[in-house]
């Protein structure tokens, strides 16, 4: 469990990125942090594994204050996938890239081998095992980065903007993948602007604006509330917009995903 208690964070140059933020991420939860550019989303999740320490307030990861321990120790249970994979890739082969963290955490060689194979298969990267990560496409590099974190099986996986630069098919795969991880009991936190993506995943949402949390709740509650969304410069998902337009025909408009939209519409059509 990650417990953020009245945390403020100011960067050395004086930018106040977080102001008195409190939030709790429970074990096994699926959480999306949304909000406009510069809202403080990345700053918030960097507190989760101790990359940033609060200026005031405290962050507890499984009841350990992040101030009292090292990033390397926290990283063992809180995996963090950065937005840009090029910030971390440096090895000659994908395989070594994935092993890097495992060796840092002191896994023995046979375990490293097993975990690497497992992670490669999980993300469909097996054919690239011996390829240089720099030869891969942007989307593939992102998957390598993700594999390199999942390999050590952290309890919590934090992903900063996982959908950026991914085509529709990869996004869909990523979505199923995230849902699968979550249903296997992993805590998943994603930071994103992608409303449609969030609408399809239906996690709990934390909405941020200028360093504060402006709303918190289920996807259905938040994404069908245009007023709240506007505060964080986010628009209602397109499906919801359609259903809001259909409200005078007696449609409910708390619909955010394709599946239920399809169901509602076909029910109506069959009735006719």
């Amino acid at each position, binding site marked *: 469990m990650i417990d953020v208690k009245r945390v403020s964070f100011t960067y050395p140059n004086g930018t106040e990125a977080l102001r008195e933020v409190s939030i709790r991420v429970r074990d096994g939860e699926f959480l999306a942090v949304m909000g406009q550019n510069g809202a403080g989303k990345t700053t918030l999740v960097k507190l989760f594994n101790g*990359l940033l320490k609060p200026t005031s307030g405290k962050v507890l990861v499984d009841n350990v204050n992040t101030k009292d321990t090292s990033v390397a120790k926290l*990283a063992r249970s809180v995996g963090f996938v*950065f937005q840009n994979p090029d910030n*971390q890739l440096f090895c000659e082969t994908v395989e070594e890239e994935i092993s890097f963290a495992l060796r840092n*955490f002191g896994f023995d060689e046979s375990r490293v081998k097993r975990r690497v194979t497992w992670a490669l298969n999980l993300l469909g990267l097996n054919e690239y095992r011996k390829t240089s990560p720099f030869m891969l496409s942007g989307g593939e590099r992102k998957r390598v980065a993700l594999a390199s974190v999942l390999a050590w099986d952290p309890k919590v996986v934090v992903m900063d903007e996982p959908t950026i630069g991914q085509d529709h098919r990869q996004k869909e795969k990523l979505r199923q993948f995230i849902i699968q991880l979550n249903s296997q009991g992993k805590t998943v936190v994603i930071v994103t602007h992608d409303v449609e993506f969030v609408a399809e995943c239906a996690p709990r949402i934390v909405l941020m604006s200028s360093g504060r949390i402006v709303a918190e709740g289920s996807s259905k509650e938040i994404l069908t509330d245009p007023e709240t969304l506007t505060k964080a410069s986010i628009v209602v998902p397109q499906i919801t917009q359609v259903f809001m337009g259909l409200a005078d025909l007696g449609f409910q408009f708390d619909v955010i995903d394709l599946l239920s939209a399809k169901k509602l519409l076909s029910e109506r059509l069959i009735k006719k």
Partner: protein
Amino acid sequence: MSFFDGLKFRRVDSAVHLMDPRVKFFYVFAIFAVAILFYELLPLIILFFVQIPFVILARVQREWIRSLRGAVFLAAVIFGTNLLFKFIYGGYSLAPSDLEHASAMTLRFLVLVESFSIFFLTTSPDHLGLALEQSHIPYEFCFAFTTAVRFVPVLAEEAQTIMDAQKARGLELEKGNFLKRIRNYIPILIPLIISAIRRSLELAEAMESRAWGAIQKRTNFYVLMLRKADYSMIIISILILVMGIYIRFNVPIPSFSP
């Protein structure tokens, strides 16, 4: 990366910031020359403190201290190697004068860092490019130089992100012996270098697509001119230089160690 922070320009309204970069460069040169002339501790101490009024005048104390703090590691290496060589060549023993010598060499380094940091902290990249251009250096070189300077903070920021990304994968930079610690930086340097190369290629493409170099003769909106403060700075620098040379050749320098 605090060392780079200590060289990052920040706009401040001060007399030092307004000075002509060429004049400030001359000042750095004067300090540099005098620092090289002396290997005794006392004059280097004086040289170190002589510069502090400029730092205060420019109101960049905080950044300046940060740049010095960033130089501490290298300073320690210089101190260590100097002592080591004195130790080996001095027949495996150390005299107090050796300690003084090592301190002087370290202080010389710090004096250089100090003057460079004053220069970079108070000179905007634009100003610097202008100064180069007005010194009749071909524009291509001026541009390359200012771009390089401009990229330092960008690279520093990127290095910070990369460090974070690797720390999040369990990399511990401060772990292990000296060699291991240097090796720890490989996962940071490789992504940094690759992204710098990629960035420079992108920059070249962007410049070409915006018709860089289409006009042979460039003119400038701003033209640098020497002001009163510039003349005082020139005089101070000449004084430092002349006094340094005079003292070097005519005045015996007292030593701290017997």
